[in-house]
């Protein structure tokens, strides 16, 4: 497919030259297609970057779900499986991943690099699904109002994981594995029923008595 060819050619170029091509024309010339063909699929090179990242996320979700135990997993394990699979994919594309992140790094920390926009949209839908499933199985506590913010909180978690991965210098990025395991465990302890709910429950009870 033409779209795939363009994407692959762009990826190869960026990996070889450590920078995007100087112009769309340069790339289409190499591919031997008219420049207009390019714009049928992408408006800019940035759009390809966003698409590649969205692909990483999609592949990670699909591959993780292929595991036979996927159906036995709770939400926590599913999120873990997604992260570990994503990490595998990023490991194979680490140079590109780091480069594209660096190119679009926002000035303010905590903000999302633009290159992750499409990836983020899919991820938040995925996280929302996981949380809904978790509420059904009572793995996640139902907290109206607060819970609308959860997908954004999980987005911050993935930014943390990506940041950790970018700086990890341990062999085979084993420390990132550990970081993921711990971060996900913590987050699910927080969204699960915990002492906070009991405290709120007591507060509500005391208020109602008046």
């Amino acid at each position, binding site marked *: 497919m033409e779209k795939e060819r363009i994407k692959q050619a762009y990826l190869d170029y960026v990996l070889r030259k450590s920078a995007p091509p100087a112009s769309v024309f340069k790339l289409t010339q190499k591919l031997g297609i008219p420049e207009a063909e390019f714009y049928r699929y992408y408006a800019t090179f940035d759009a390809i970057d966003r698409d590649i990242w969205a692909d990483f996320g999609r592949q990670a979700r699909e591959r*993780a779900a292929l595991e036979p135990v996927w159906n036995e*997993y709770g939400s926590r394990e599913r999120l873990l499986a997604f992260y*570990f699979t994503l990490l595998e994919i990023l490991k194979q594309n680490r140079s590109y991943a780091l480069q594209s992140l660096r190119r679009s790094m926002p000035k303010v920390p905590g903000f999302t690099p633009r290159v992750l926009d499409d990836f983020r949209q899919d991820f938040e839908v995925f996280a929302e699904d996981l949380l809904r499933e978790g509420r059904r199985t009572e793995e996640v506590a139902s907290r109206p109002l607060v819970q609308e913010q959860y997908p954004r909180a999980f987005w911050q978690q993935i930014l943390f994981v990506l940041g950790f991965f970018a700086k990890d210098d341990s062999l085979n990025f084993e420390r990132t*594995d550990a970081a993921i*395991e711990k971060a996900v*465990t*913590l987050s699910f302890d927080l969204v699960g029923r915990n002492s906070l709910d009991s405290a709120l429950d007591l507060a509500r009870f005391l208020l109602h008595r008046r």
Partner: protein
Amino acid sequence: MSDSQEIIPTPESSKPLVSLPTTKVARAARFAKTGLKVGANYVKHYARRSVGAESTTENLHAANAAELYGALSEMKGSVLKVAQMMAMEKNILPSAYADQFAQAQYQTPPLSGPLVIKVFRDTLGRSPYELFDEFDINARQAASIGQVHFARKDGKALAVKVQYPGVADSIRSDIRLVKPIALRVLGLSESQVRPYLEEVETRLLEETDYKLELRRGTEIADRSAELPHLEFARYYPEYSSTRILTMDWLPGQHLKEFLATNPSQAVRNQLGQALWDFYAFQIHTLRQVHADPHPGNFLLRADNGGTLGVLDFGCVKDIPAEFYEQFFALLEPGVLTDEVRLATLLTALEVLRPDDPAAQRDLYLRTIKASLELVAQPFQQPSFDFGNEAYIQSLYALGDDLMQQPELRQQREPRGSRHFIYVNRTYVGLYALLSELKAEVRTEMPFLAEAKL
């Protein structure tokens, strides 16, 4: 395949651990906190003492041990390994510490399923579901630096050990962290323990190399194949990597569960004999020993009058010939009464130094003699009853006594060849197992008479 030996994690133990300190700084902070608390416990102890209240040293040890164990169990992996090791050294460690640490042998929070799969993909390129016909994602047992899963392939039941990520990486820094605390608790000085710590570090790092374990396990099992009533798991290199070790799932129960079934004296004797012969063979013939004889590494069952399954060849100590000769010369009958020969041997073993002042030399000689009289007892008779409570009690009491002796505590340097550590640990573990079994064992060693220095 019976399921009787399955160790299924209790709900508590499978609960994920929330507060695992990740960074080195966090770990250090955790230890610093423990150090403070241990200090505080001492202060409380002496404060209570000074107002005449009943505060036994026992209490103090129990409080410290709980504190230390809390810190250690938050830092899985190598630290836990050190804890286990100290637990083995019952004769060094007061019993309260030992009891707390002994828990470490059974309790560690498991890895999540997805991470287990990832380790497979990372090191073997395929998921466990592709490799095996059946794979239980929930760990059946925790090992100190990994966990054990049950799998089945072509009808064969397999035990698959999976290592925690980053264990090898963190061992060095962990030892640096544990060192000051351990030294304080054990009342040792820091300056001259380096050779010993190096020895421990080497063993710990070796333990993270499952390829090495596979090779050594296969080798020792092959060479020990002739010994009766023993059973070894076969290793499967095609399903093993540096972080995954696949072997046969041996039937049997761990010591505690097995003893709860009230095995007969004959069965216990046979198991004890098998254990003793296995160690005698390794030490005297192979000169290479499975130096981790803690209860978690053996599976017992009553079949054929008692069969012993041996697991885990992670910790193997090669015994150098020179050390071997000097060490076993110490156990020969008559050495203890021959002061000159004893002194010569102890000097060779670096326990005594030519420039020691006479008083110190006497102190060491006296202490060593007292210890050896006890430790060597089983070797000097045709058979020995490890069910003899009094003997084991006096063995443990000896360690406690040594710790209490003011003159000895003032000796701020450990003595002796570094090879003592694991050879000692092996015998302490072996004696402990045999006494739990209450086995009567033929201990005679014909070669002793031949061994000449």
